[in-house]
């Protein structure tokens, strides 16, 4: 929200700041005829360089992003309407909406859509809740906070594939303790592998994802918490507000913009995040853990059907844009009214 707020006035200055050069070039020619002409000749080029400067600094980044991300993105969109199979040299022709027709009949895809909702919703809600609690715990100064912070944020640094493997092993009754503990607690009938139980398999990647994603929320929320002016709390305490009232009337309103933006970004990100599922279950058992992102990867990597994979990807992109709009637009109109 705040970023959007500061975009607008800055955009104004951006356009106006570009105006002076035309105004300054003209009087220069008059100076050129003066005795100091030799000195004022160069500035025209120097001025040109001055205005090219921001582009020079951002050029490498732009070139890279455009060639490695934007061009493939557009290309990928076109694949969605073509028959592109890596192993079939005769493929490549346009097939129109064929992929989308297949897609609408594809049971695996509709299952994957449902699984994506479930996977994303559960992961984000749990990551956010535990992340917020952790941030609140760490916001209080105590001895050894720096150390604790480093330790609880450590899962974030664990490579995602390793996080997936690690949790897969923990759920493995041969080598991991979890099935035995769950059995001992009476939660399951026998110490089997959760990941091969079609009804509960999705919980495996979700738990791994929560473990892995709590630090992200905790770090961003902690940062936002620490930017709240302390004297607000002091003033509220003097006014007689208890912990809960302070939390509701100061902490939450201050966190709201950060929460909104991180939850939005994270939702999109988690729904695209296939690593854990690819590593832990490969989408199984019986596609019960297949999400759209992992389905795309399976189609591209295993079936080598790039056309179909791109069609799925395009549908996912449209859904994500629709979701973002759904979140952003009402906020925008609210802001504009305010």
């Amino acid at each position, binding site marked *: 929200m705040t970023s959007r707020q500061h975009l607008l006035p800055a955009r104004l200055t951006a356009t106006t700041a570009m105006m002076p050069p035309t105004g300054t070039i003209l009087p220069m020619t008059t100076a050129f005829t003066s005795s100091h002409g030799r000195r004022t000749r160069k500035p025209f080029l120097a001025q040109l360089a001055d205005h090219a400067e921001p582009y020079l600094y951002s050029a490498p980044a732009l070139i890279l992003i455009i060639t490695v991300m934007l061009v493939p993105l557009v290309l990928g969109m076109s694949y969605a309407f073509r028959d592109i199979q890596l192993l079939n040299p005769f493929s490549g022709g346009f097939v129109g909406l064929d992929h989308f027709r297949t897609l609408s009949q594809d049971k695996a895809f509709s299952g994957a859509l449902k699984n994506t909702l479930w996977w994303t919703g559960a992961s984000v809600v749990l990551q956010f809740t535990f992340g917020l609690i952790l941030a609140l715990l760490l916001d209080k100064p105590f001895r050894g906070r720096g150390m604790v912070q480093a330790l609880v944020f450590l899962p974030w640094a664990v490579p995602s594939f390793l996080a997936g493997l690690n949790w897969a092993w923990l759920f493995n009754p041969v*080598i991991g303790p979890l099935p035995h503990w769950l059995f001992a607690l009476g939660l399951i009938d026998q110490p089997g592998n959760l990941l091969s139980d079609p009804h509960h398999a999705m919980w495996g990647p979700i738990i791994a994802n929560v473990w892995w994603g709590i630090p992200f929320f905790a770090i961003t929320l902690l940062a936002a918490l620490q930017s709240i002016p302390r004297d607000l709390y002091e003033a509220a305490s003097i006014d007689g507000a208890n912990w809960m009232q302070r939390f509701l009337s100061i902490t939450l309103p201050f966190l709201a913009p950060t929460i909104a933006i991180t939850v939005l970004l994270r939702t999109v990100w988690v729904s695209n995040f296939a690593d854990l599922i690819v590593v832990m279950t490969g989408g199984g058992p019986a596609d019960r853990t297949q999400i759209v992102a992992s389905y795309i990867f399976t189609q591209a990597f295993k079936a080598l059907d790039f056309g179909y994979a791109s069609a799925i990807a395009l549908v996912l992109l449209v859904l994500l844009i629709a979701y973002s709009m759904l979140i952003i637009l009402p906020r925008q109109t609210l802001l504009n009214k305010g």
Partner: protein
Amino acid sequence: MRRSILPVFAHRLAILCYIVFALFPLFWLLKVSLTPNDLLYSEGVRMWPSRTTFEHYAFVLQHSAFPVFFKNSVIVSGSTAIAVTIIASLSGYALSRFTFRTKYWIVGLMLLTQMFPLVMLVAPIFKILTPLGLTNSLTGLVVVYTAFNVPFATFLMQSFFDGIPKDLEKAAMIDGATRFIAFRQIILPLTLPGIAATLGFVFTAAWSELLFALMLINGNNAATFPVGLLTFVSKFSVDFGQMMAAGVMALIPAALFFLLIQRYLVQGLTAGAVKG
């Protein structure tokens, strides 16, 4: 004072729970990697084996391709981190210091790259890189990873540059420096924490990347650690000790980097979060 003991106790207990939850999986990884094969099943749920051994590590180092994977990953992650940091310093500086016509298009483009599913790019990038001979090559991976990480790194660096007073480079320019010299001699040295954070962040990200590595690399010669480990897992899925020893080794560089830079990373995100 007496009443305040209970909340403090609850606070510490909650933090302890978080620490246990965060570290237990890693502890288990370490434990199994140190358990001798003959105790693996008999002492399956024990917290620590009665004997420990380094034989799994020795095996992985001597009889597998992991040293090659490790080297590949170090090359890829290291080059990516350095390339991204250089490029993102420049672009982050541009976003922080200049107002120019296309700035908001650039910001928008970078935000867009953070939104769309990267899996979408798997197929087209494979198609583009194949004729260039950049599949199955570390260079190809570095180029792809660099592009993927530049947008976020740009925002990260920008938040660090924003924290440095503009008067400093103005003073330098009055002292006789061009903007680029002021950038190099005055601003960059002051952004070292930001550079460290970016280096660490990108290194870890590149170290972890799996999908593109799987897609673009086949065969052991150019495989990175994630690809190698996953191949190893599917091939020797019963050698748990060895797999976990390899896992611990994959964890070490990422975790080390993270512990070194996490303070700066939190600092950079703080600045970013304040802006929203």
